[in-house]
């Protein structure tokens, strides 16, 4: 099953999430007009979502994203770990 969500987040940019899941997330694609430095960190965020269950909590999603941002010393512009987690959560509803 493929689910989708698109939102203009409170930091100002558009975030789109497409997720494919069986019992767990098997594929997740994040797109939008935001900035993330370094850019490759988005691949790491997408990978970190694989194998999570569909009812994974907002807190868990935000925690995982925050950790990746911290580990890579990355900067998000126009989005935040929390707003990205919110769009992912919305897609998985």
């Amino acid at each position, binding site marked *: 099953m493929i689910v989708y969500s698109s939102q203009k987040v409170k930091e100002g940019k558009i975030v*789109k999430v497409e997720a494919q899941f069986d019992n767990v997330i098997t594929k997740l*694609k*994040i797109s939008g007009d935001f900035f993330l430095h370094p850019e490759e960190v988005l691949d790491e965020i997408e990978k970190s979502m694989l194998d999570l269950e569909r009812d994974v909590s907002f807190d868990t999603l935000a925690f995982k994203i925050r950790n990746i941002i911290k580990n890579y010393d990355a900067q998000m512009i126009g989005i935040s770990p929390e707003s990205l987690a919110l769009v992912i959560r919305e897609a998985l509803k």
Partner: protein
Amino acid sequence: MKWRVIGLETHDAYFNMALDEAISESIRVGSSLPTIRFYNWSPNAVSIGYFQGIRDEVNLDVCRELGIDCIRRWTGGGAVYHDFDGEITYSVIAPAGIFPKNIIESYGLICGWLVKGLGSLGIEAEFRPVNDILVKGKKISGSAQTRRGGILLQHGTLLYGLDLKTMFSVLNVSRQKITDKMIKSAEERVTCILNNRDIDKKDVYEALVNAFTEGKDYESGALSIQENKRAEELALEKYRSDEWMYLR
């Protein structure tokens, strides 16, 4: 620090974006000076941000029909319609260490050069974080930045004229839906040089060159043979490839 300034050139979308990357590589290995370049796009083109999906953002059928190129940029941000007559594009490529680490501050610094250029033309403009420049509250310029391998690349456009109808037709809004209301609404949010001053595009370009180079030690330069060759490779192997185009 000495800069190289490459005067207004016209290339297609693939070569333009490849050139920014080729120059970044060249500066990284110390073969080229930090560079400011100005350019046009021919054919007209749509560029999308690094994280965007081309099918989501661009009406590919209309682009094909109108002979408009489509390209994914190396930088984030949104989709932009690049009209040969309607804009001037710039790139600033230099070691990241000479700019503030804070990304918004570095946008502010480079966009400040543009604001100054507009000011010299009698157009009062302001930088609006993250990456916009406004005149009377309307967007006249947008920029996008990436930092890879210690090199900062910021490129951006300054709107000289507006062709909203074509812009909407390529940016994934069906032609049936391009209403007068939509165009009026965009006119309330976006502006261009010609809406503010009746001035030749050449004069705008000269004002930009003066503002971007003010206080800098610079030489009027050209691309090296190596940069040209590398840009041709990148244009063909990366920027024209389906793998890159449909990355997301």
